[in-house]
């Protein structure tokens, strides 16, 4: 990892879900842990997210989804991530995601999944570990 460049995390709220408490809390924790974080705000389309990830040259694409729409959202986003050649970025998702959907999400290409009871330290440690090249 380049010593002078902080790891960049794009934190996005896809779809229409307005629950952003968790996303903002994770954003603050990542900043305190030394990451460079850009938060998209609510109601992002797939195109908005891949465009933001490319503009920011994000190392990590992190989605926060609590509406239950994670499968259709990630399925559609996968196509765009490939199209925008962002498949080499760490892709994580957090929120209200039941265990029974984790395998499907991993098959789609999501590298790590966190739920509402995951701790900040766990999320921070995992991203650090996974982004060290």
């Amino acid at each position: 990892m380049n010593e002078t460049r902080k790891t960049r995390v794009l934190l996005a709220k896809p779809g229409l879900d307005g629950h952003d408490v968790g996303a903002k809390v994770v954003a603050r924790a990542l900043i305190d842990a030394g990451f460079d974080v850009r938060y998209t705000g609510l109601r992002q389309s797939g195109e908005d997210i891949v465009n933001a990830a490319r503009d920011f040259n994000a190392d990590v694409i992190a989605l926060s989804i609590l509406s239950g729409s994670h499968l259709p959202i990630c399925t559609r986003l996968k196509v765009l991530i490939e199209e925008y050649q962002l498949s080499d970025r760490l892709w994580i998702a957090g929120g209200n995601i039941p265990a029974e959907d984790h395998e499907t999400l991993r098959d789609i290409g999501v590298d790590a999944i966190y739920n509402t009871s995951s701790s900040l330290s766990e999320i921070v440690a995992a991203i650090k570990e996974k982004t060290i090249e």
Partner: protein
Amino acid sequence: MSNPEKAMEDRRFNESGIEIEPLYGPEDVVASQADDSDGIGDPGAFPFTRGIHREMYRKRPWTMRQYTGFGNAEDTNERFKYLIRTGNTGLNVAFDLPTQCGFDSDDDMAQGEVGRVGMAIDTLKDMEIAFDGIDIQNITVSLTINGTAAIMIAMYLVMAEKRGFDISKLRGTCQNDILKEFVGRGTWVYPVEPSVRLVADTIEYCAKHTPLYSPVSVCGYHIRESGATPTEEMAHGFCIAKAYLDEGLKRGMDIDEFAYRMSFNFNIFGQFFEQICKFRAGRRQWAKILKNEYGAKNPKSMWLRMIAGGGGSGLTIEQPENNIVRGAYYAMISALSGAQTIALCCYDEAYTIPSEKAQQISLRTMQIMIEEMGMTDTVDPLAGSYYVETLTNQMEAEIIRIMADVDARGGIVKLISEGKIQSHVSKGAYEHQKALESGEFRKVGVNCYEIEEEKPEVAMHPYKVEDAVKQTERLKAVKSGRDAAEVEAVLTQLKVAAEGSENMMPALIEAVKAYATVGEMNRVFTSVFGRYDEPNIF
């Protein structure tokens, strides 16, 4: 009875930052009283500390209004009827996100979201199906919608009128508190100014045409969920409510013409006595604001009418059955606080749309309090407790302090527009999360008394794709059956109203009658108002 020699480690504070003493006496009540205190008074009389009605639950228990809605209008109508059969005395409607954000079910932005977190409504037709066979005069309905609330109120009133109800006597509530959506919950659509104008239009329209309908339910609730303390919740809620009252006054209405229909929605999770005193303090403060600042004469204008019983952030996905116990405490807090309506959160609500079973347990919790526990027998049973009255005084002083601070920093509308309130409460949420992870803030099943290797047995609400398909098919059928020229004409009229300064409700009502869709009406508004550009602050 404070003890100055008390060791620092023995000191305890509630979430609002007020120190809690090991013992209270009459001198604490006196010492905590404001110089201009109106005391606690009697129930049903100013300053309403003890409740807005003289007899409170003795005359009629709180309305039991469980929150529900999913799939399409048929699915939701069926659940409504189940809830009424089991003893609910009101309905509290959940809408799906496309409806809340102004998208039709066939919109690209609605993909995967139709009917998922609530019921999908595209046109008046859906509203007719949703309430088919339900006596909406006796089972009052609360519509939990904000960004598109004006559209939904118009649809609801047209539906009621078509069903033969006299809307001048129709009771009911719409959440319609857009300012808090910018802080938490996030279903805003238009920029702040036109959003507030729409709220004011509904207030003005309802004051003139549906005087028993409550067009706004101001929500401290979601501000608390977003990370605010209990006193911040109430103070920010009051600042927002005042902003709407000010809009009503700007329309030339007398305060007593519309303030009496303002209602409130507050959160319940947290410490038992802090919550109860929050409500008693808030009720007194709101009465004083209306009387002293707004010059209200009608006591009803001074009433803090409220729904309580929801507290999602207090529930845990770990050991979910513990949420049943939490729910029982929340119900007791709500009842001891004098809530008019209780919508008690369900034990599975931390992760899914509640099952019928979970809904029934919440309802039975309230029914047990009424039928077995004697909770409705006497009014404000905690009054006179040294602790309760002292804490009520202290909570009120803190609410006043926070409101003054908001005003000194430019007022709530400005602070929300700039993202300042959002940033402040989000910082609170972060600090809370850190305290939870460090163990400083104790949560049973989460950071103490955990069950190792717990695999929660969670029954998720099934999402049926066929319901969404059925919804888009009905939308298509409704659209093809309309008079296209009529729809175009009513939408043009709506645009004229939006571009001008007149009240937009009459034009919305005409559009709804012509079966214009939520998406069509929303597009008219966005073409005139634009969309809210969220400040990128966390």
